């Protein structure tokens, strides 16, 4: 009996365990809810289904969304490839840069996700040209669809760092001496070394050899004296900026967005070396039990209602052309759509093949 047959026809081990648990503990409602037909268990950045966004998707796709706690894109991919991971969630999303390999597997047939039935995702046609290269495909079949994108840049406090300061137009703001003692760094090897490499003029930071990595390590160690603190979570960065303990930092979108929402004078720089951009791809694990609803959700994420609300509600940007369609020029610039329009410089946050060496260099910087 094939896996499909066992799922649809008989009772397999997973079903047996599930119903055993339900029989024993049926008085508690949780499981009953999880069995509902159009309920989708999804694993993606929780901000993507925050506020009204969840309601929009639920209405458009006629589904109910259960979003699991999101830790990181790495965690999402790890959960997909772990034993039993292809049947845990109905829809997952992670950074496309390191999802492609694990999702597709080594050869055709080893894919961990289902091929997307594009007939069920008519809004696939709306994926902006900039992100077409991020579509995860093999042999003419699409396995991952770019849905959302964003960027990391420098965040600074407008009241204390003049917006026309040359440093605010560069990654230099978080390295150079001018704001010494008021600078925050993100405690992560990949992004911080990328930013430093861009600042130091490296054309392809993801291809740094060991000598160049050492050079960047020395630079970061020399500049570490200017740093007030290294933060590890977005909430920590928000608190540090809001309290004035730091006035400029390496910064992801949610930090800026949340602080602006609370009327803190925080904005981001459009670094002349390029902000670090990333794309998130949605995919349907191959043992997802509700493929139809997962397709519907994917389609809704590229649709106008969701795409146009994504930036105002979360700060992230839509990979759908419909996302920026009705925005004013000022809004497009403010949210960062200048990147797709070619007016704002960016550099994709690519994965270096020697990431272990990057982590070793970053550890050296931290312990120096």
């Amino acid at each position, binding site marked *: 009996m094939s896996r499909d047959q066992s799922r649809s026809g008989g009772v397999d*081990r997973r079903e047996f*365990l599930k119903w055993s*648990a339900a029989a024993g*503990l049926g008085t*508690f409602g949780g499981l009953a809810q*999880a069995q509902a037909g159009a309920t989708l268990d999804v694993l993606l950045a929780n901000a993507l289904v925050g506020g009204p966004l969840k309601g929009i998707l639920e209405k458009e796709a006629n589904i109910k969304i259960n979003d699991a706690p999101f*830790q990181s894109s790495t965690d999402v991919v790890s959960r997909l490839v772990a034993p039993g991971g292809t049947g845990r969630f109905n829809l997952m999303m992670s950074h496309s840069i390191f999802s492609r390999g694990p999702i597709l597997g080594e050869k055709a047939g080893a894919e961990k996700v289902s091929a997307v039935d594009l007939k069920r995702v008519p809004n696939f046609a709306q994926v902006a040209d900039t992100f077409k290269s991020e579509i995860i495909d093999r042999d003419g079949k699409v396995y991952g669809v770019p849905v959302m994108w964003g960027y990391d840049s420098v965040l600074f406090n407008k009241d204390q760092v003049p917006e026309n300061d040359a440093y605010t137009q560069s990654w230099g703001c978080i390295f150079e001496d001018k704001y010494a003692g008021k600078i925050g760094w993100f405690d992560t090897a990949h992004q911080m070394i990328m930013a430093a490499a861009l600042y130091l003029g490296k054309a392809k930071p993801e291809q740094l050899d060991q000598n160049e990595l050492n050079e960047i390590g020395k630079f970061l160690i020399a500049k570490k004296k200017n740093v007030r603190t290294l933060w590890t*979570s977005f909430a920590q960065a*928000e608190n540090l900026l809001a309290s004035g303990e730091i006035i400029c930092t390496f910064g992801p979108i949610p930090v800026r967005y*949340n602080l602006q929402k609370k009327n803190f004078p925080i904005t981001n720089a459009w670094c002349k070396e390029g902000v670090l951009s990333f794309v998130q791809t949605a995919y349907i694990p191959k043992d997802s039990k509700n493929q139809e609803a997962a397709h519907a959700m994917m389609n809704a994420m590229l649709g106008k209602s969701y795409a146009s609300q994504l930036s105002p509600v979360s700060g992230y940007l839509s990979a759908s052309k419909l996302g920026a369609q009705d925005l004013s020029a000022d809004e497009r610039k403010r949210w960062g759509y200048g990147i797709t329009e070619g007016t704002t410089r960016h550099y994709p946050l690519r994965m270096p093949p020697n990431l272990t060496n990057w982590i070793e260099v970053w550890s050296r910087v931290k312990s120096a």
Partner: protein
Amino acid sequence: MSTAKRNAMPWLLRGYAGMFYLFLYAPIALLLALSFNDSQVMGFPFKGATLKWYGEVFTDGRLLDSIVNSFAVGLVAALIATVLALLAAMGLRHSFPGRDAVIPLMLVPIITPGIVSGVLLYVSFGIAGVPYGLWTAVLAAHVSWVLPFAFLTIYPRLHRFDRSLEEAAMDLGATPVVVFRKVVLPLIRPGIIATLLFSFTLSFDEFIRTLFVAGSERTTPVYLWLLIVEQMAPFLPAVGVVIMLISVTVAALGFWVSGRAGKLAKQFER
């Protein structure tokens, strides 16, 4: 020892004790103060007193759901773990091959780091096909975590009281089931209640194993962790105070019942 040194010792001890309590309780006092701070920033300066963060706590639907989840799973995990611990403790009153290895084996979850347990549970549940969820993977994870503690709490209670009471009952014709119901259970009941409460507290606070196997469900610690990681939530100190009050109340109840159990058991100890 000179007189001067002898006179200084009590003061040094007082100073040490004072510092000990300061380090122990100052963060809690700080949390309490911050929970009333009318500021968007978690920290000082103090910008006036407010109760609005408590208002947010009690109107945050997802937080309330997570508290209900933690309560429910904590209750069931405590019940299962206590019953299993009681059965194990009863069994260990008899001799059988490998008896000496049972207790160390039962204590393995205590000495295994939480993150390692989380990964092990995640992988093994994946292989076994146990679905994510409160009443499947989370409950199993919590029982496996709580069981050794329940056993350690209940085992001494069961082994301390005078077994001649059981023998006397059997001499009078009571069956083993009747002896258990009429003699053993009443004597260890306070111990069982204390074990239940202790197990509940451990389950209620469990985070790392739950994070690995919870799927889309959120228990209170998982929800709190999300809040802490994702955004600056000024009502977090108020959440912390509420959660602490729940844990402290249950723990205090446990200590009280445990104290009663101790007094009662002493009367029948050999």
